[in-house]
């Protein structure tokens, strides 16, 4: 969604080469958050041609390799539910959401919840009904948490990448044992791409900040992505790239079949891999390059690739003119 803050920032950056946000906001402080220290992250790419395939079986085989500590735990799946989506082009597909839920239950999780806070649509039930989530995942009562309207708690932001010092965040997100970011593979007209890190905007409650959560745009999208992810730290990421979106995403782009699921234990590494699959250089995506120092790995050498190779599934996504500088392979 667009606010005058977005437009002004983008155009000033484009025309003057200067970034208003950079000039007025503090640099992120690595002193407040320890740098990411894991030696190597793991990312798997699996081919899935359509939403009618047995996605749960593919996921079960893949997730077993990661040996995730979810037995007896409460897991929250955070899909990307942008708005009303009867044809399944903008939201994480319900077949994927249901398959991931089934897989975590099969892996021994005690409870697997689904939760999101759509950015512009207040009527979350209308969003869920438009995409048919009930038909795929069963009754919504007790299963789905509307993160826009959940109870909240104050969270001090450790990174201070943006001007935000605190956010009120959903207690459900803060209270679960294992958080999974479950986005759709899309381009984004302000951030370049929206994947597992950008997907975390959805945990910021509309009930506190409105629809859209415009405070994040004014704080600087790239920097706010860092702050939110440092605050909630998703444990795992699974990206629905079976049919993605290119061009004027995240809402008005063009469906782009890519035929993959990309999953891993480091959201930065997963997003970097997705960017490479999309034909984009992750180092040129602002928030990803910043996240690389704090939240995860971006370098190929620090990502152990499982399943398909990037080259074998690469599908170039069209981007808006303002983001053509992202095109490239690294």
């Amino acid at each position, binding site marked *: 969604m667009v*606010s*005058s*803050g977005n*437009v002004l920032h983008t155009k000033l950056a484009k025309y003057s080469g200067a970034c208003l946000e950079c000039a007025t906001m503090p640099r992120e402080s690595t002193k407040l958050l320890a740098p990411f220290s894991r030696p190597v992250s793991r990312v798997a790419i699996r081919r899935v041609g359509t939403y009618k395939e047995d996605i749960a079986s593919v996921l079960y085989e893949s997730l077993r390799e990661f040996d995730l500590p979810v037995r007896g735990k409460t897991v929250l799946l955070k899909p990307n539910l942008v708005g009303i989506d*009867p044809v399944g082009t903008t939201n994480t597909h319900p077949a994927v959401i249901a398959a991931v839920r089934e897989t975590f239950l099969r892996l021994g999780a005690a409870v697997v919840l689904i939760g999101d806070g759509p950015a512009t649509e207040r009527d979350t039930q209308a969003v869920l*009904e438009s995409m048919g989530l*009930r038909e795929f995942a069963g*009754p919504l009562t007790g299963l789905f948490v*509307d993160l826009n309207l959940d109870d909240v708690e104050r969270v001090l932001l450790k990174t201070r990448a943006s001007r935000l010092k605190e956010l009120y965040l959903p207690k459900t997100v803060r209270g679960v044992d294992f958080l999974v970011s479950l986005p759709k593979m899309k381009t984004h007209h302000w951030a370049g791409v929206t994947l597992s890190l950008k997907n975390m905007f959805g945990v910021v409650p509309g009930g506190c900040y409105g629809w859209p959560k*415009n405070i994040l745009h004014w704080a600087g999208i790239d920097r706010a992505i860092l702050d939110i992810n440092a605050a909630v730290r998703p444990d795992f990421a699974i990206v629905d790239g079976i049919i993605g979106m290119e061009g004027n995403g995240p809402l008005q782009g063009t469906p782009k079949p890519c035929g993959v699921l990309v999953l891993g234990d480091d959201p930065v590494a997963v997003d970097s891999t997705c960017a490479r699959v999309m034909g984009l250089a992750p180092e040129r995506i602002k928030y990803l390059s910043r996240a690389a120092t704090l939240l995860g790995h971006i370098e190929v050498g620090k990502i152990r690739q499982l399943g398909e190779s990037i080259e074998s599934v690469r599908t170039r996504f069209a981007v808006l003119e303002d983001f053509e500088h992202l095109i490239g392979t690294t």
Partner: protein
Amino acid sequence: MQSVPENLTEGDSAFIEQTCIPFLLKTQNKDGGWGFFANSDSRVEATSWALLALRESPSEDREEIRRGLDFLRSTQLADGSWPSAQGQQEGSWVTALACWALGSATASATISTPISAPISATESQRSLSQGLAWLGNERPADSRAWRRFLRRLVADKDIVAQDDAYYGWSWTPDTASWVEPTSYALLVLRRFAARVASNVFRDRLRVAESMLLDRMCPGGGWNCGNPMVYGAPGEAQIGPTVWALLALRQMPEREEIRRSLEWLENGWQSVSSPVSLALAQICLRSYGRPTSAVRDALCNAYSSEDAIRSVPGVAWSVLAMSSTQNWLNTAAPA
């Protein structure tokens, strides 16, 4: 049993009295407020809608209303605004809603008194005045002169098609104008402006109305406030469309209103959730459009065991069905 008011069927009355009101009474918290759902923490927005709904119910003199108003007064910040969640130290769009609930209560208290016994109308009116003053003085970041100058400097209609001369109200301070908070502010200030310095608000209201008209989607209706992005027309949504249409009710002859009502009359038929259906019913009814079909759909929506029952959603259902519609009665523009 109470007699059924004109234009309210037996079924509608039963729906309000047997489904909606009991839910609202049952979900009130000990602190007097309501959360968005049963057993959730009290919030100003949910409390405001619940209060407006209970005021519209046939038995309006309830102890629950007094406790709810107490909650609102106790959560008001020193600057007159209300925060969207307890603990926050900054006001937000919910200030308009709290003013609406307080204003409706105090207006009623001056006419009939059953509710007012323990309520100090003076205290509520003071709270309301402070809230309205904050709302009237609150300026979104996109209204600031230097911001507008910079935007003109780099204006690019390829990205968004909107007139930056107009502004309204934001969700939270220091952010941009959006359709829904602007609509709430217009509805509340127009209704209660006569009680405070209404002259101060007059120009502001006109600019905000122009902003709403400017932000209408090309096909009619409104979304959050992006009618066109990178050349692609924005898709309207029921919620923002309803609030914008209600805020612009004094100009029913305008083409924008006609097209948006048309959009809404078609748009509600593709949804089955109670929240959207209740809002559609509120708006179509206020414009005198046929509503029996949407009303039936709303009652049916709650018959599902899996219907998500939120406090605002149920409150909007009461407001959609109420016979009096006092909550929407608007004083003439000052």
